[in-house]
């Protein structure tokens, strides 16, 4: 009942206006037919009326009958005007052309010059994969996640690492979506590369706060990554050859202007130079990863469009024939866009996601295979309804079937291992949501919504119970489909904007997020064997509440965007491990967990320049992230590992000429909170460190400068050739990757601290082409 009232209230604007007509259609890139996401449609002379295209390039604008001139505009594209007499519903499809990039010309790099100020959304960072091409990165492998780590509120999990923390949250609190499919392990090669091949990507948005109600399932953030649809006008190929990896993308029309495909692949060849070795064992070793993104779409009629996209990536490591270890994600998304009416757009998605790893050992004495997997089937229905220019209502539901296979050992005839299998886990996760982005007055806008989510942990499974020390005290077998534990909750999301004047606004937001899946990791960086576990009779869902507020101001005709955002977050049902926890192949792994709470707060400052020869941003974050567990640190609050108080990043890109671009970035942050010993003792003849408090120390401060140079050797309408040079850690700072305490090898009575640093001066070179 409660919910119905709410729905009526939320949908009220639906009935408020009726004697109007609707203009709807798609906005596409004139050159390749790609949908343009977030293009602005505005009404000349009526600045309070307008619309933006959705994820599929669709827009809907309802106006009273009359004469209008519509203006269509987007990032670095020439604006287009359309004059019409509105007497009935009308479909207008628009193709926008890229503006020729003369240096003197003003190139707009965000959808709308004043979006920073005028949009109700806060706590979001949108990245154009093209824009980051010149940002220097490790080994020259451009990486959206590593670029996002340079923005306020986002911290790298470690040196050169593609894992990240958002606003004091843990790495598993980020919902990483690739064409709506969750990616469970978003990194390659122990975290040094992300799974995202920039060549295949169209749009990347990170929501750090004010998370819209359509997203749910993780506590801290949503990284929404959308793949390109492929060129629907002509066939083309592009790619690059780098030190570590090469990339190739092929795309083209299936039927011109009706459908297109894209295939994009990347493979590293770290192992090819192993072949240079004289040692047979090294010669026969394997060490590589690959990514394959494929996507196709087809316009079935005026109202229907189908999309099929997939991602397949795998890391392969093998030592001679005796040891093999491979892991990777597969995702697939089948989508159906349907225009129900000029005001209602529907998208239905069937999504598959799988992550698994396999370890094979085959020696003269041992023969076994270890496997582990997590798999999702997800049905998602979203509607967007635009009754009038002042309201944009989204509603929908999704239902996810989770299957967890935490581990199995299959022993060969030659093995002394027993075949073993950890109990599988099964869960159903569901959510319904509704939200409205509403313009109340010219100055005041509110985005309000609510999401109801539920999670059913079910059989067939054995549910264990544990005492306070984590010892098993009982177990119960549940049959297939029988509910073991059900959790649910309401997740309110609201944000408001008030424009103080043309160039400045204040915004505030509150959101609550439930997280039903948890990642258990026994390393500080991401590892292929990290284990996703469901909420259960022992593990409660994590609940994160975030309050945020900010001031946004643009300067010099929107050339400079400035924002200051503050947030305060509380985290419930956080997970940590008992001392010496055994997370590997442990049937009773839930007995190794302890539960507590946390809070995080901070202030983020961003100055961004998107226009002109010089572009880039300066980001500064002051933040804290604290945890409190009865079982840890004598129950006293302690800093989380990602509690780095000061974090500065400066990113600068400068166009020297049409052909030469230089770039640089500098980062500085307080060292991570770590546990160091405060004493020692002798045991069994060994020097043992004595720890007194959790995360009571700090790693040394981290700083680094990277430089990049892009040289375009040829550029025409159709073809492009360029070289990219980069230098990672240009002044060779030896940043601490780890610090260990050990006996002094020269004097066993003494002890010492040993620091390991990675990556001082890493040059890289990449050749890129397009034709």
């Amino acid at each position: 009942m409660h919910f119905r009232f709410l729905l009526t209230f939320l949908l009220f604007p639906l009935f408020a206006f009726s004697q109007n007509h609707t203009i709807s259609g798609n906005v596409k890139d004139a050159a390749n037919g790609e949908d343009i996401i977030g293009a602005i449609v505005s009404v000349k002379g009526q600045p309070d009326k307008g619309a933006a295209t959705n994820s599929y390039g669709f827009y809907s604008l309802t106006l009273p009958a009359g004469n209008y001139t519509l203006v269509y505009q987007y990032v670095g594209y020439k604006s287009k005007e359309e004059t019409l007499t509105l007497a009935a519903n009308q479909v207008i499809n628009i193709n926008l052309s890229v503006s020729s990039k003369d240096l003197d010309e003003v190139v707009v790099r965000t959808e709308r010059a004043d979006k920073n100020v005028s949009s109700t959304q806060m706590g979001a960072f949108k990245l154009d994969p093209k824009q980051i091409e010149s940002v220097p990165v490790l080994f020259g492998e451009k990486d959206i996640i590593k670029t996002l780590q340079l923005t306020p509120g986002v911290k790298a999990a470690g040196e050169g690492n593609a894992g990240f923390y958002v606003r004091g949250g843990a790495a598993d609190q980020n919902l990483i979506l690739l064409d709506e499919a969750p990616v469970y392990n978003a990194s390659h090669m122990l975290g040094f590369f992300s799974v995202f091949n920039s060549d295949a990507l169209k749009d990347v948005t990170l929501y750090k706060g004010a998370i819209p109600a359509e997203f749910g399932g993780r506590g801290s953030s949503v990284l929404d990554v959308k793949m390109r649809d492929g060129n629907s006008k002509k066939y083309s190929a592009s790619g690059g050859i780098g030190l570590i990896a090469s990339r190739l993308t092929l795309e083209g029309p299936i039927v011109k202007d009706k459908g297109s495909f894209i295939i994009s692949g990347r493979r590293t060849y770290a192992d090819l130079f192993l072949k240079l070795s004289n040692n047979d064992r090294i010669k026969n070793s394997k060490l590589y990863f690959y990514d394959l993104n494929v996507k196709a779409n087809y316009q079935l009629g005026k109202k229907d469009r189908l999309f099929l996209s997939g991602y397949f990536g795998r890391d392969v490591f093998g030592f001679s024939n005796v040891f093999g270890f491979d892991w990777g994600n597969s995702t697939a998304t089948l989508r159906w866009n349907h225009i129900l009416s000029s005001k209602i757009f529907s998208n239905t998605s069937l999504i598959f996601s799988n992550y698994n790893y396999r370890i094979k050992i085959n020696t003269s004495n041992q023969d076994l295979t270890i496997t582990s997997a997590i798999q999702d089937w997800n049905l998602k229905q979203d509607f967007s309804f635009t009754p009038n220019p002042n309201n944009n209502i989204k509603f929908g539901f999704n239902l996810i079937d989770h299957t967890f296979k935490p581990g199995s050992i299959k022993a060969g005839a030659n093995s002394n291992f027993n075949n073993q299998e950890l109990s599988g886990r099964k869960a159903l996760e569901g959510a319904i949501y509704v939200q409205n982005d509403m313009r109340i007055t010219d100055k005041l806008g509110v985005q309000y919504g609510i999401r109801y989510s539920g999670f059913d942990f079910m059989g067939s499974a054995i549910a264990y119970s544990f005492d306070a020390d984590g010892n098993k005290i009982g177990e119960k077998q549940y049959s297939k489909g029988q509910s073991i534990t059900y959790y649910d909750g309401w997740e309110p999301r609201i944000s408001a904007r008030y424009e103080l004047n043309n160039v400045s606004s204040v915004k505030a937001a509150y959101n609550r997020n439930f997280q039903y899946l948890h990642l258990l990791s026994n390393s500080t960086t991401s590892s292929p064997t990290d284990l996703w576990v469901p909420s259960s009779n022992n593990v409660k869902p994590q609940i994160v509440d975030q309050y945020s507020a900010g001031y946004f101001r643009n300067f010099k005709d929107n050339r400079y965007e400035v924002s200051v955002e503050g947030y305060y977050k509380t985290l419930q049902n956080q997970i940590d491990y008992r001392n010496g926890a055994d997370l590997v192949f442990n049937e009773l792994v839930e007995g190794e967990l302890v539960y507590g709470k946390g809070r995080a707060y901070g202030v983020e400052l961003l100055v961004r320049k998107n226009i002109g020869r010089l572009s880039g941003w300066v980001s500064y974050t002051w933040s804290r992230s604290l945890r409190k567990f009865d079982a840890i640190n004598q129950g006293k609050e302690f800093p989380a590992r990602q509690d780095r108080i000061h974090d500065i990043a400066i990113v600068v890109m400068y166009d020297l000429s049409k052909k030469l671009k230089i770039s640089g970035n500098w980062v500085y942050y307080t060292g991570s909170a770590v546990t160091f010993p405060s004493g020692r003792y002798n045991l069994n003849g060994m020097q043992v460190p004595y720890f007194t408090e959790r995360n009571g120390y700090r790693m040394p401060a981290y700083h680094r400068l990277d430089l990049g140079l892009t040289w375009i050797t040829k550029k025409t309408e159709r073809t492009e050739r360029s070289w990219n040079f980069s230098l990672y850690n240009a002044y060779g700072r030896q940043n601490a990757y780890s610090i260990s305490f050990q006996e002094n090898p020269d004097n066993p009575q003494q002890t010492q601290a040993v620091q390991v640093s990675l990556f001082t001066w890493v040059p890289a070179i990449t050749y890129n082409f397009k034709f």
Partner: protein
Amino acid sequence: MNKILLTLSAVLLFLTSCEKVVNINLNNASPQYVVEGVVYAGTDTARVRLAKTTDYYGISPQQILTHATVTLSDDVGNSLVLPYIVGDSCYQLPGFTAISGRKYSIHVLVDGLTIQGSSTLQPPVPIDSVSIVYKTDGFRGAGYEVATNISDPANTPNYYRLVTTINDTLQNQPKDLYLFNDKYNDGKHIRTALKRRFKSGDKITLELRTMDAAVYDFFTSLRDALNNQNGPAPANPNTNLIGGALGYFGTFARSKVSIIVP
């Protein structure tokens, strides 16, 4: 050109890390009691060492406590006081006979504080054989690989530590903590290879110790504290002592084999 590029990449990937001794300021924690109590199966000396922690970088030998009252008892009503023996810097009782299956306890009274711990003596498991194989493959290059073979008793959890003495030197560095159990291979043959290569003439003594679950937990968490300080949460080893002391009290059954690499 390609070859140069590839070689360069190899260098970049693998040789860019570097290691150095650094100066990290550490707090000096107030000293804490440390107990190390060991009882072996059969007739042997029972020993309990009692000391205090020192500053991490301190060079002074640790402070041995000599004024405590240390009692050793079993679960059938026997109880003995262990006197402090100056020469060995510990409380000890020579000729103590420990019987498999019994639960032994220590009781330490020091400065008004009581520290207690107990451990059940497990039956010994013999080393069936030692395999010595000349190897050229694997991660460790060429040389003799030495491995112990045991038959794990079925249907009971078993916990093992392998202690090695190489050319008359006891191996007691953190990397020498060979700990394993029968979690994956209960009742099967368990082979444990030493993580190094040997040459002809090397003299190796292999001592297999069995212990109960709590003592094994102490040793595995000790190994983590020594070798895995960069894990998510380094912590003091899980002691089986009650009363607020560091360390452990363990009973061990031993079986021993000595070999000379041919």
